[in-house]
């Protein structure tokens, strides 16, 4: 369970990205966060695993106050939370399997990770994760040889190999074409349902957000303006989130 209570995030340059956010996400939910660029979506997501520290308020994940974590305990906490990025953030010059195995280094000693000493168990976990997203046969190919959609699946497999209870996805399909986007979103949905992993995803594509997420959170200038089921989103709520009416094309995330 993720529990925000009056969370404020102020950056050193004075920008207030979150202005008192309160919300609760239960284990196993699939939540999409929508809103304009700069509305605070990214900050909200990165606050959950302390990639950004919050300025005030309380943020609890599975009962643990996140801002109290430091050093080793923070790293142990992060192991339980996977993260997927818009730009995939793969290590391009190395193989797919090594990318997925990279998610295992957090569980290894420094010496083991320096020597890249992965156990057989680690390798099996990595290969099973690749199988989950349907690209097992690409395991020993260099990551930069894959298409964008395949790269995002590797990134998803890397996250699954981490065996997290929560996956945070920062614009996971923003740089993919519509067909590939749908495939990747299906992967997210399957993993969400099969493994009961909470998925919190920032989405530019409103139509995809409404199609895949059961719950949608609309954020505007650091304040939550909508929080409810995807079916509850209509013209009016979108207008409130985005500040004006959206056209048919804009709903599909096309310019």
């Amino acid at each position, binding site marked *: 369970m993720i529990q925000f209570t009056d969370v404020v995030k102020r950056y050193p340059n004075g920008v207030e990205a979150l202005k008192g956010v309160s919300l609760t996400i239960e284990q196993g939910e699939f939540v999409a966060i929508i809103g304009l660029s700069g509305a605070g979506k990214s900050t909200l997501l990165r606050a959950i*695993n302390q*990639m950004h520290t919050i300025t005030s308020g309380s943020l609890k994940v599975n009962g643990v106050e996140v801002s109290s974590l430091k050093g080793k305990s923070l*790293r*142990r*906490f*992060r*192991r*339980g*939370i*996977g*993260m997927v*990025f818009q*730009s*995939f*953030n*793969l*290590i*391009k*010059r*190395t193989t797919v399997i*090594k990318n997925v195995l*990279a*998610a295992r*280094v*957090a569980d*290894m000693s*420094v010496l083991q*990770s*320096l020597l*890249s000493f992965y156990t057989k168990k680690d390798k099996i976990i990595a290969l099973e994760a690749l199988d989950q997203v349907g690209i097992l046969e690409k395991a020993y190919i260099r990551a930069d040889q894959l298409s964008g959609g395949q790269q995002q699946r590797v*990134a998803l497999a*890397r*996250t699954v190999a*981490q065996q997290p209870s929560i996956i*945070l996805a920062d614009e996971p399909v923003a740089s993919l074409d519509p067909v590939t986007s749908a495939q990747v979103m299906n992967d997210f949905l399957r993993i969400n349902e099969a493994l009961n992993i909470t998925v919190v995803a920032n989405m530019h594509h409103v139509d995809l957000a409404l199609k895949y997420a059961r719950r949608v959170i609309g954020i505007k200038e650091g304040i939550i303006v909508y929080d409810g089921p995807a079916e509850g989103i209509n013209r009016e709520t979108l207008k409130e989130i985005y500040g004006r009416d959206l056209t048919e094309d804009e709903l599909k995330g096309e310019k």
Partner: protein
Amino acid sequence: MAAFIAMIKGIISSMLKWITPPPLVLSNGKVVRPAISAMWIIVPIISFLTLWSISMTRFRLDMLIRRGGQFFVIVSRMIPPNYAYFDNIITPMISTILMSLVGTIIGAGLALPFAYASSELNQSKIGKFAVRGFFSIARTLPVLVLAVIAMIIFGAGAFAGTFAIAIFTFTIMVKMFFELIDTADMGPFEAILSSGASRIQAFWTSIMPQLWGQYYSLTLYNLEMNIRNAAILGYVGAGGIGIVLAERLAWRVYPDVGLILLVLMITVLVIESISREIRRRLL
């Protein structure tokens, strides 16, 4: 006084007018003023520095013309080289190569953790600038000075030379490599960090795979440089071919000197071409 300032102002403004290029008028009547060329500043500075250097070093063209021919006289005495002397230089030559090889490997290996500490990945600003500052100072020491210091500590010989090369490589590799780290793609680093890895682990698994090729390439480049460095270290007694070269040159046994230089040139060329070939394949 006021008249004087007005005069200076007048001179400056007329000079500026003289060096300002005429404005360009476009067909639609818009006027563009080209910028004043930087050459008006650069050329006078370079000219001044050149003239100053000539007077400082007492560079004399007539000396170059009168005595310059001696260079070719000495070279001609080296030909033909004394091939019989080869047996005497093979050991110091191999020792020169080994000195630079071992020194380069040690220096390059030591440089890795300190390059990390100097890079933007180091969260401690004080730590980062302390390490960078230390290496900036350390880099000002020429390899010959390092060799002399090493000889005071360890005594004359190849060990002192190897030590000097290792330290020299260490200090320059730190700078060269931390600049590479700072140009690496930080996305994968964020990804591994978010999975709960420590910064060192994230660096090793996400940044280094991007940089291994460039790291080996830098190391080989240093090896090339160090072969040449090692050849002169003998001049101060720090082992290698330089000792023999200095001695033969002092005795003016030019055919022997000729052979030493020939072997040295071939060695450097061979190592450089091997290194270049490996580096081409790495990148």
